């Protein structure tokens, strides 16, 4: 039963304080989103109202209610990256991947997102791919960037 596999995750986290986020993080990592049944199972197991878990799940951008792709491409749209042309980088990626911002490619491989400041403005504009940050990205080089950052992962292949 699927309820149990989520319950197992909940049970692994035992800290009486602040275990909600780590539980949700683990579910997100494993299933690439927070399935509805997972949140329901967690609420029941934690004895918390579902409305509160739902609030947490929708508040943080690192959680998603829809399945995300295998690889997450996050274009920084913080102030400096914005000024340094983040919008053009996003536009180029949208064209290359055939999805709009926030979307996931049909094959479930890539999710294109916009992220807020990644904290390395001197490297703007930056793009994070699966958690590692790439500096001074130009629209002309995104193709290569993806190829080198994700082995065998050229979009449209």
């Amino acid at each position, binding site marked *: 039963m699927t309820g149990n596999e989520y319950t197992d995750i909940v049970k692994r986290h035992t800290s009486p304080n602040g275990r909600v986020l780590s539980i949700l993080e683990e579910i997100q990592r494993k299933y690439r989103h927070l399935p*509805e049944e997972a*949140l329901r199972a967690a609420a029941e197991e934690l004895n918390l*109202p*579902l*409305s*509160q*878990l*739902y*609030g947490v799940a*929708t*508040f*943080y*951008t690192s959680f998603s*209610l829809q399945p995300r792709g295998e690889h997450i491409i996050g274009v920084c749209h913080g102030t400096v990256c914005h000024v340094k042309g983040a919008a053009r980088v996003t536009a180029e990626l949208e064209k290359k991947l055939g999805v709009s911002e926030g979307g996931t490619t049909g094959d479930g491989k890539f999710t294109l997102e916009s992220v807020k400041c990644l904290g390395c403005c001197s490297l703007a504009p930056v793009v994070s791919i699966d958690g590692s940050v790439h500096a001074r990205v130009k629209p002309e080089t995104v193709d290569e960037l993806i190829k080198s950052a994700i082995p065998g992962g050229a979009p449209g292949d």
Partner: protein
Amino acid sequence: MPEMIINGLAVNFRSGETVLQAALAGGIHIPALCHHPGLGHFGSCRLCLVEILAGGRPGLAASCSLPASEDLVVETGTERVVRARRVVLGLLLARCPDAKPLLELAENLGAVKFTPRPGDPGCILCGRCVRACRAVGANVIGFAWRGRDRRVAVPFDQPPADCLGCRACEQVCPVNVIKVVEDRGRIRIFPWQSEIEMAYCRNCGAAIGPGVQAGRLQKRFPVEGPLSGLCPACRRRFQAALAGGLVIQPT
């Protein structure tokens, strides 16, 4: 009792009270929306702004969440307060341009400008319904999403199975966006889409209240035997009859 100064008048307060509470008790009116006497303060509407002149950090502060203190001196109607309140009210009205209570406040204040936000669901995010649901309901609604997408929601936008139908959310909403429709033995609460079956008196057929709540009450305060499942009026009649006293005829 300790005293503070509001609008030049000495006002008494009990320890732990806020400036808003002290003002209300002292007969001084301060407009407030997200504050509710039964739900405490939240500080989300910013309508209750007052100006601190002395005894605290000078400037504007939300009186509902400002603790009253001995040497505090505040004014509720200075030029600065009125100007700020106009802006706040304009922002709230942009979200709910049709809300009568807001329009009335705006009329009293005068010179409130706003542009309605198209497609807005008409909620000011004061959180009264959320707090009421937490306090007396089944905790089925909550704040969800973030920033300009923030709204009060039921999980996954699906009719909440646990809703008691207590209507506390409807009762406390200051802008009346929560609507309840009664229809053929059920009530529906919008926008949550709760649907609750009513319970009926087994004697006269009058509606007693939402079925879930009646069931919950029955569990906490069980009524067994001939008195169970009755509306208050029928229960009194049955009780009287049982006691062998006067039997009150229905009128």
